[in-house]
């Protein structure tokens, strides 16, 4: 249970600067300075930091979507699910077809698994709906269902609820906690909301920009993560703690 789901060893990323400016030998943008990070299997880790501090880059390197410039990423066996900031659905396909995509791409029939995944995110009955017929929150649920459909061991989420209104976000947060408890996933959740990070995660990794790096790694100890916990003192205290670290780092 305590095996590492993800291990980063000296992982860094430098993007070559776009225009080869004359004269000045530019070294490019260091999106992430050499970083070590171990994520325990089954844990829920949030990554917070101001925009441009390399959160997405870090997550994409974990997913294998961006190759690191140096260092290496180790990932435990098993499927990976990725949820983008926007729902990223195919507009020409129904909720069910969108949800079944990861299976369809590996030649597996998803006609049972996809409706089941949709039901788990509360979208039973919307299998035949097209994305434009769904609200933003529902589209995000389809996106989460699609990430779940392969029964991933590791779920990577890049500011998935940033574009949603607060009420919808709270609901999806509650749902996500419930799903995480049910499924035993390892979740890495990127957000720029301290409150969201503290509410969801057992561990908050704080990042800082120029160059992107990890400046703090805080264990969050919340007695309960029920919707009511958002009003508790324990919650407010933890938020203040993370906030102080984040401000100190900036």
């Amino acid at each position: 249970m305590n095996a590492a789901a993800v291990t980063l060893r000296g992982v860094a990323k430098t993007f070559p600067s776009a225009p080869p400016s004359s004269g000045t030998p530019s070294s490019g943008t260091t999106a992430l300075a050499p970083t070590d990070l171990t994520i325990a299997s089954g844990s829920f880790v949030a990554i917070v930091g101001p925009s441009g501090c390399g959160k997405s880059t870090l997550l994409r390197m974990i997913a294998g979507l961006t190759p690191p410039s140096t260092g290496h990423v180790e990932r435990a066996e098993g499927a990976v699910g990725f949820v983008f900031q926007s729902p990223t659905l195919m507009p020409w396909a129904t909720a069910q077809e969108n949800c079944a995509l990861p299976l369809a791409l590996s030649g597996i029939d998803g006609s049972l698994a996809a409706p089941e995944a949709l039901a788990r995110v509360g979208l039973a009955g919307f299998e035949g709906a097209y994305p434009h017929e769904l609200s933003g929150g529902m589209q995000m649920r389809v996106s989460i269902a699609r990430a779940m459909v392969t029964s991933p061991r590791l779920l990577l989420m890049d500011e998935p609820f940033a574009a949603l209104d607060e009420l919808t976000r709270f609901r999806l947060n509650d749902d996500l906690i419930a799903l995480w408890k049910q499924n035993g996933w390892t979740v890495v959740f990127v957000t720029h909301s301290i409150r969201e990070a503290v509410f969801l995660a057992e561990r908050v990794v704080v990042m800082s920009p120029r160059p992107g790096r990890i400046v703090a790694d805080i264990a969050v100890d919340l007695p309960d993560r029920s919707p009511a916990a958002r009003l508790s003192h324990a919650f407010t205290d933890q938020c203040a703690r993370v906030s102080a670290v984040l401000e100190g780092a900036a």
Partner: protein
Amino acid sequence: MSRVLLPALFGILVLCAWEAAVRVMGVPAYIMPAPSAILAALASNAPDLLAGLAVTLEVTFAALILAVATGVLIAVLLASSPLAERTFFPYAVFLQVTPIVTIAPFIIIWVSNIFAVLLILAWMAAVFPIISNTLLGLKSVDRNLKDLFRLYGASRAQTLWKLSLPSCLPYFLGGLRISGGLALIGTVVAEMVAGTSGTRSGLAGRLLEASYRLELATAFACFALLSASGLGIYAALQWLSRRLLRRWHESAREEQV
């Protein structure tokens, strides 16, 4: 309702004014025939004119189908490599900006089959919007969706069929609507330049012949048939486009009350 009614009313009004003007001023039919005379010419020459129209439309549709097949193929190839696009796209533009009448004489010398000559010229007129629009569509594929396909190990063929082609469909259909009209125009221009005559000649050839003989009513009848065909092609492609995109694309969304 008014979308059909208003233009139709306007058209009828213009025709009435035309008829009245020709009658009142006593304009001879070899200068300006009245709509009633054109209608009569259309009726009396119907079998002949429809045969000509069939020849013209045969070339038009063959050219359009060829333009779709080659245009999409060329766009997919150009989209697969920036180097290929930079190298070859200027020649697609060249194809577009060159007036086909100036190329026609060469094609007529090089190719003996008249159907092939017309086909080539009409294809040249029609293919560019397909290439450029499809290419634009292929390059506008959502980056996150591309990443998603990569994450789940999609092959190049899967990415093409399940992602690139569906997402460029609205762009392609926009190009197709333009190309449909251009294929007809290209065919007509080619027929006029190639100077086809006889029973296998298209409607443009008959229009020229009729005008040489000062049978202006017949020439106008040919013109009317060609215009109607152009409108028909546009309407058909518009319908096809709406049908294909109805479920998912903004452009074809049925207006809600």
